[in-house]
């Protein structure tokens, strides 16, 4: 049986800008509070993750991620048209990589200077 369908406008572009992990997010709304452009709104249900309402107004400053008290609860997603452009090549092997690829190499765990 197919799911119920609704008359909704097309998803905005970019679709998300940020994404929540509802198992980690505690719905504290700190990200909602600091977002300079009001991309997100609080969820009508308390302690639930916020709702991304205006993803096309996101500036990708990362403030929401930095304010989040629960690492991994909120993740920034560059628009696909940006992500697809971020490519690199391993010098020794010539292997090609890109942001968002299917089987990414292991993370480089070196923190930025000052951490």
């Amino acid at each position, binding site marked *: 049986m197919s799911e119920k369908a609704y008359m909704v406008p097309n998803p905005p572009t970019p679709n998300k800008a940020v994404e929540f992990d509802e198992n980690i997010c505690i719905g504290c709304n700190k990200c909602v509070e600091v977002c300079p452009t009001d991309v997100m709104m609080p969820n009508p249900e308390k302690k639930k993750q916020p709702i991304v309402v205006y993803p096309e107004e996101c*500036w990708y400053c990362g403030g929401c991620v930095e304010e989040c008290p629960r690492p991994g609860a909120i993740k920034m997603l560059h628009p696909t048209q940006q992500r697809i452009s971020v490519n690199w090549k391993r010098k020794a092997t010539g292997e090609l990589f890109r942001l968002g690829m299917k089987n990414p190499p292991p993370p480089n765990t070196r923190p930025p200077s000052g951490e």
Partner: protein
Amino acid sequence: MSTWHEYVQQTGKVPEWPYPINYGKMNEIVSDVLVIGGGVAGLQAAINATRLGAKVTVLERGHARRSGSGGAGVDHWHGAVTNPCSKVTPEMYTNACYDSMKGWTGAHVRYIITKESWDTLLECEKMGIQIRDVRDEFKGADFRDEKTKLMFAYDYKNRHVIRVWGWNIKPKLYEEAKRLGVNIQNRMMPTALLTVGGKQGARVVGATAVNTRTGEFNVFRSKATVIATGGSAGRLSYFAPELTASGAMSDINGAGVGQALGWNAGAELLGAEASGHNRLSGLGYAPYSMGGAHNTYHGTPIVDTEGKEVPWKDPFGNALKTYEDRFLPQPGHDFILGEGIGIGLYLPQFRSNELSPDLPERLRKGDFKLPLYADLSRLSEPERRAIFGMMVGNEGKTRVAVYDMMTNAGFDPDKDLFQTPVMPVEGYAHANFWGAGVNTPANMRALGGGSFLTDWDLRSNLEGLYIGAGGNLFGGGCHGESHTTGRFAGKKAALYARTAVEPAVDKAQVEKEREQAYNATRQSKEGNGWKEINGAIARIMRDYCGRFKNETTLNLGLRLLNELKTTEMASAYASNPHELGRLLECHSLISVGELVFKASLARKASHAGMDFIRLDYPEMDPPEWNKLMPIRQVNNKAVTRDVPLDFHLKAPYAATLEENYRKHVVK
């Protein structure tokens, strides 16, 4: 579940507006100093005015903890020429900017910046911002001073640009402002400056603003006001946030609100006719998310797809032999100014070493093969770590969006070649590849001016109105400059407020503002939304104020702006306070558009430095037009006057930079 679409599809319900709405409810907030714009400049103004005993309110469009163009961080601080390692003086730096720009920059503002930039940075250090290599991570590197542990960029000999760990600079400023008791009012969209009697050109006594979550109306009454908004009106001549938001260097709130407030109150603005085919137009790529060799990536080796390295040259055309040379002045250099300081022209003796300027030609000939890559691994470990680990880890919009994202995805600057954009070869003429303007249509212009003209107190022509900002201030610059001018303007505003008479706001002006502000909430739901209106404004600007202008097209454009204002815009509808805020920003954009058209009509000569081409006045740079021409409104009519380029050293001012500074400095 993250998005509205997912929510609606999962629950079958449209969520209600989450904040209580009270359209028109009036709140009055009284202070000595009102600061409009809570970015780095605005918070510096607020902190410093408070330290001088003023009661201060900040009116902020977003939330002051993270907002503003500088809110996302900073990795290098310009103009800190009085730091103990610098070999550059304030006079040298100011004159380098002034001479490079052939006089078209506010030297008085540059001088204030260079006198106080280092002191401002030291105050930031006290607030908890790391400005030295305290962990000795870079011990022994050429760009580090072993005694002070300061680290430098661009010019390792003259040492006036300081590398900083500024990813958290905004939260630190915010905490300091809160600690001092500054009243910060977030989510405020200003609609007008209040003036005595509601008259253009009269003393400024506050502002009105709408809260874009609750819709409430706020009247800010103040003895002095500081405008500290950013200089950008990114939505003025192109409007496509779906494509441009991730690549832009200022956010969607940038709607020229500060300029619009000033213009409508009768303040003098300069150079609104200047525009650029700007490299930071947002039609490029996310900042620093692709390989390049400019700014934060300055000095990075660029190689072609076969590993052949592109040579570097000094500004005099001589090839550089070593990687170290890229960061050092060469024979003929006075010192290297550095880029991203709000000037577009450089005399060769101050210009950065750069990728060989014949790169586009050599790509065309097949000497180099696309794509090009940034090869950080060729640099020494301290240099590579300073560029990617330190600077990219701290620059605006790069800690989360580039450093974290790319390292989590496995990028390793020790081992990997970072691809640069693949684009028409002209795009490789400048090493800021990610922001190359070659991808932007020629008629999409970015404001090149429209900044406030101030005196040596950073006061505008209006009593009670001070300016502290970056691009919004004639002579302003970038991140550090915004801190420094905000700090100076805040002090001056506080001193003025000490003796200023109690301000009275004009009730009729307040009522008129309140009436107009809610117009869009009372319209038929069939009315246009803000995006439709913004798109139309941008179309008018592109078509009638594009690269080539003449009297007729400029007048037609002005007519169409007015048409829009009285038809589709007058009946535009806002269904909630967020949409209302965006629509009020469109009103600002229209004001800035009018300013640009009127300034363009007033300059009856083409001007190379302003990239200003009048088809009906094709002669470029005729000497009689080599003058500043501030424009203001008197009874809603545009009025200009002529001001010499060196007005800052002419009566009533003293003849030297230092003498004037001493007379105006707040000790």
